[in-house]
């Protein structure tokens, strides 16, 4: 039996001014899977994510998260949905005026009634998961790009959300860090049964973690399926993506 989608997008249209960036896009994200959204630069991958999360307002269409329609939803109600979603932004988006510890503590302090001792333990664990235990007292400006991204992941998973969305998590990271990040993402899926959506171009990463692929091209979704299906498809854009990116 087909699983119920955790996120369901129907006929989504997004525009920047007069330019259409997403043209009647429909897609389903299934629970406890890692879905990778891929496609060429500027094809609308990040725009799709930001429209799903109402960071941008879509022109038309429907977006259901955890069974609830979020377009037109009141802000208070949408906040409850957001508490079940963790987002790792492309550049980390850490708050520069706060230490790493304080950055990760924001969701824990604001959305739970956990005691400071428990919050401190959770933060220590989340930082150790991303191998940054010693960075707790540093500020984001003292970290490298890769470190910022790892801290941002620790902040995104602070509340153990049901859905984790990562915008280009491996971009700018060395292969080893990138691989360890992928391992962590797999662990999060397995242990916490998270549903994970990843926007990435990195073929190595896609091979390691993807359960399902969504391929965007020219503002439309041209392929949805597993990695094996993607590799054997005859859709020219998908076929050339995997052929050109092959490194064996």
């Amino acid at each position: 039996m087909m699983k119920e989608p955790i996120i369901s997008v129907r006929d989504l249209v997004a525009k920047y001014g007069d330019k259409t960036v997403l043209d009647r896009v429909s897609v389903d994200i299934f629970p406890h899977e890692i879905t990778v959204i891929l496609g060429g630069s500027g094809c609308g991958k990040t725009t799709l994510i930001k429209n799903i999360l109402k960071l941008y307002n879509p022109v038309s269409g429907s977006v259901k998260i955890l069974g609830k329609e979020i377009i037109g939803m009141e802000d208070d109600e949408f906040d409850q949905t957001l508490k079940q979603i963790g987002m790792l932004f492309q550049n980390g988006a850490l708050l520069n005026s706060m230490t790493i510890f304080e950055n990760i503590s924001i969701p824990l302090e604001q959305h739970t009634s956990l005691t400071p001792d428990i919050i401190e333990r959770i933060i220590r664990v989340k930082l150790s998961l991303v191998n940054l235990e010693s960075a707790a007292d540093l500020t984001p400006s003292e970290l490298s790009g890769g470190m910022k991204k790892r801290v941002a992941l620790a902040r995104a998973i602070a509340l153990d959300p049901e859905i984790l969305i990562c915008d280009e998590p491996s971009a700018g990271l060395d292969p080893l860090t990138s691989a360890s990040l992928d391992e962590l993402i797999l662990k999060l899926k397995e242990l916490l049964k998270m549903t994970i959506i990843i926007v990435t171009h990195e073929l190595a990463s896609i091979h390691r973690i993807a359960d399902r692929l969504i391929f965007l091209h020219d503002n439309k979704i041209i392929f949805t399926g597993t990695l094996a299906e993607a590799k054997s498809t005859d859709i020219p854009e998908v076929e050339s993506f995997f052929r050109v990116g092959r490194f064996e």
Partner: protein
Amino acid sequence: MILKDKNLIFSGALNKFTVPDLLRKCKLLAEKEIKSIDLKDVETVDGAGVAFLDEISGYFPEKPRIINANTEVKRTIKIFSSVGLQPVPVIEKDNFTVRLGESVLSWKDSVVVSFTLAADIIYWSITGIFERKSHRKGEVIHQSILIGVDALGIISLLSLILGLILALQSAAQLRQFGANIFVADLIAISMVREMGPMMTAIIVAGRSGSSIASEIATMKVTEEIDALRMMALNPIKYIVVPKFHAITICMPLLVTMSTLIGIVGGLIIAVTYLDLSAVSYFNQAINVLTVKDVIIGLMKSLFFAWVIVIIGSYYGLKVKGGSEGVGKVTTLSVVASIFWVIVLDALNSLIFYF
């Protein structure tokens, strides 16, 4: 949660929602002898649940064993356990003398850096007059519009109000002695020597000084300054010199405008409240002013302008961190500019009028 035969039994979910209540209950059991924590009926555990188990282990005299956890719960505990991790280090603050010493040294460094920067800016501004290629074409005009033309409205309005206020406050006193005509002396001297240059400088420091500091600071944090260097361009020549030239042209003009409008503000009160004629007001104002007053007022405005550009550039270039750093240096630059404008004004009064 049940306590049975020194065995603490949990059931259901141990997660961020159930933990606060469980923690309160466990605190009541502190110091009791607990041999084991039974997780047989626990279905799910998250990060907060594991942190809770680690935390309560320390409540009891003897560390209890965790028993009967299913495979999945065991794996989650293994991944999320904080046992053995280093606590978050507490950074010790330096004592008073160390902090005092550091601030003196850093103040000394700031003085050296700001004077070097000022020398650089002045040198490149002088050579820049003859060298047209060092910055973008039309940049001086563009900056003059931003610093001068765009500030005309607010400076005119405030000068008019200032002239009105000065005249109104003094009119009542002067009238008692039949000295109505001296309102022209008061307004002319105060606007030319003090209020015109200083008020204009404070408005320009707030408008243009802050914009110079934040623009340069943003360019620094986004590596645009480094990019200019890599294109073999001198950032001071390219970014700061056009602003320096523009403010040098605009400031005396703004001050002249401000002074004239302030005097007109005084005229309104003189005519309507003190029954003076416009001609006698202007004649009196012109007679009381000396060439020295006008020249000192304009020279002062130039020094104020240069201080504003140098301080804005200094703080812009010394930015550290990201967006927060930009906000900090912008505030610091406005405060410092206004402070030094007032100090320079006081020095000027001491030198020329004491």
